[in-house]
């Protein structure tokens, strides 16, 4: 029996059992499709996190108070959860003046969450007390107006720069620059003048950054909260260091650690120094676990699909015992019968595989950029996942078809013919 004849017989048998074939194939379609979709979702999540970390700026190193230092020097400010206050603006200035090679810029920041009120609405926002170097170091730009200047810092000016999302939320009709907003929480009631609006960072993960508002660091530490140490130094909860693009991040980090350990006169650092690569690495672990989990679920559905194919092929062999007997009587060898049934199983699986690839790619593209259950979905279709899913489908076809086919070929021709 030639392969073409085998294919012809296979398609006839598949067409003859229309509904059954469709249902069997559906199992493969779902299996292959879900492998592609779930891997694309996993990769999308990974890419989203990477984008978010990259969008923080370029060549960044973050210095933050060590978690174990929590509780020290508490004031009215709410620092990042679990972080205490061990870093000061003086530390930031020292890093800049320390002459560490490879440091391009330093921007300390202190952030708190507070209620902000505009003539139209009010909203809880994250306020970042920043210095004038902040935009350059963090790689953010202004859309309108100006950022906080050195004069603002010196005067502890009541100026505020809004992130684009907040600007739109507080002033739906636009024209925010020049208007005033009010910080209103507990005893605090301060009117701030909007002097600038940040450009949207956009992209996935840009949301948080676009919702920040910025005021002079000095204003924040004196008027909104009182975070100073005994010598009057302003506490900060993060020092952003931008290294020159050629500099080795690990070496710069080590140099920063040395300077600060010396300044703080501690044996072990009471702060952490993290590069963007460190953040990426930590996130990569999380997203890799997610990808493996999603891939395993998809793999299970592929196996279930395969069991369906094998089941149907076994039923098919039993049902067609007489046909097998007739074919044997007119000259089919055992291997012709094997070929016929393997071809049939392969045709089902490859057909299901092709449809599954189409459906999977379609769904992955369809949900990309959409919001599902308040979550922005992003998918990245991996070409290897298409290849692997398809190859596994075909492999499963051959495997799950070969046992029923073997059983068919072992049938004794006379017994098979007597079968009614």
């Amino acid at each position: 029996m030639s392969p073409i004849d085998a294919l012809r017989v296979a398609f006839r048998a598949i067409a003859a059992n229309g509904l059954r074939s469709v249902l069997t194939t559906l199992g493969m379609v779902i299996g292959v499709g879900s492998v592609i979709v779930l891997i694309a979702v996993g990769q999308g999540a990974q890419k989203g996190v990477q984008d978010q970390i990259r969008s923080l700026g370029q060549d960044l190193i973050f210095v933050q108070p060590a978690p174990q230092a929590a509780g020290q020097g508490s004031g009215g400010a709410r620092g990042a959860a679990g972080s205490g206050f061990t870093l000061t603006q003086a530390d930031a200035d020292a890093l800049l003046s320390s002459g560490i090679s490879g440091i391009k810029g330093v921007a300390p920041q202190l952030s708190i969450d507070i209620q902000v009120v505009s003539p139209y609405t009010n909203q809880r926002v994250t306020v970042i007390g920043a210095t004038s170097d902040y935009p350059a170091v963090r790689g953010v730009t202004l859309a309108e107006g100006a950022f906080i200047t050195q004069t603002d810092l010196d005067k502890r000016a009541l100026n505020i720069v809004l992130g684009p999302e907040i600007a739109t939320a507080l002033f739906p009709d636009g024209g925010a620059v020049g208007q005033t907003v009010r910080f209103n929480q507990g005893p605090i009631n301060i009117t701030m003048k909007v002097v600038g609006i940040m450009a949207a960072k956009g992209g996935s993960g840009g949301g948080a950054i676009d919702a920040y508002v910025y005021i002079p660091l000095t204003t924040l530490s004196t008027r909104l909260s009182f975070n100073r140490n005994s010598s009057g130094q302003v506490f900060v909860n993060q020092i952003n260091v931008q290294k020159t693009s050629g500099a080795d991040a690990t070496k710069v980090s080590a140099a920063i650690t040395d300077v600060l350990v010396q300044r703080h006169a501690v044996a072990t650092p009471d702060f952490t120094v993290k590069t963007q690569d460190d953040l990426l690495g930590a996130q990569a672990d999380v997203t890799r676990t997610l990808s493996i989990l999603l891939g395993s679920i998809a793999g299970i559905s592929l196996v279930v699909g395969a069991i369906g194919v094998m089941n149907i092929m076994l039923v098919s062999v039993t049902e067609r015992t007489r046909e097998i007997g007739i074919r044997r009587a007119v000259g089919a060898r055992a291997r012709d019968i094997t070929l016929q049934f393997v071809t049939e199983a392969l045709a089902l699986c490859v057909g299901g595989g092709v449809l599954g690839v189409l459906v999977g790619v379609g769904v992955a593209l369809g949900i990309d950029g959409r919001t599902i259950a308040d979550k922005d979905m992003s998918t990245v279709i991996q070409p290897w996942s298409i290849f692997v899913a398809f190859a596994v489908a075909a492999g499963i076809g051959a495997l799950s078809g070969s046992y029923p086919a073997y059983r068919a070929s072992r049938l004794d021709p006379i017994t098979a013919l007597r079968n009614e």
Partner: protein
Amino acid sequence: MIRLENVTRYYRLGEEVVRALDGVDIEITRGEFVAIMGSSGSGKSTMMNIVGCLDRPTSGRYLFEGREVGRMSDDARARLRSREFGFVFQQFNLLPRMDAIEQVELPMVYQHVGGRRKRARAALEMVGLGTRVHHKPTELSGGQQQRVAIARALVVNPRVILADEPTGALDTATGGEIMAMFEDLVRTHGITVIVVTHEQSVADYADRIVRMRDGRVVEDSRRAQPAVAALP
């Protein structure tokens, strides 16, 4: 051409051993028209399966053209079967869903023979079904289905046609037509035809009648050639 030497075929049926063939010696030469008769359970179908290389003897030798079939591999027997034998069954054994010409092409599919359609059409014309080539089994009468089966048996130019109760599912007149067709194959094409039957009227078409009982040959008689022609 066909020679069975002390052939036995035992089946195990639970605890019991069934002696379907219990020492059969027979020789059939080329161009003979043989009827094998016997009641059911006499071993006639088992003998046909062995002669047609569908089954193997438990002991004894089966020689086809001097080659011992019992020692051949499964594939070799399948090859021999598809080249030398054509089968016709009581229940026609056509595949559902296939039209007549595809049924007839089927043996050639397994032999990698070229010009299948043309040869299949010629075989159907030979059995008088030239106008029914695209009919499915359900669209054909019993006699027509058996003709398709005969065309399928003939299409590979076999030397032997084995027919197991070929008229069993047909009325007398149609059965007669089928037997007349076999007779013609023997007389004009030199094909050896072996018919298994339990009906005397069917066996009467043959030149030689072999009677079986309990797995043994109990009578083997030949008739003078013109016997059929002498009938009114």
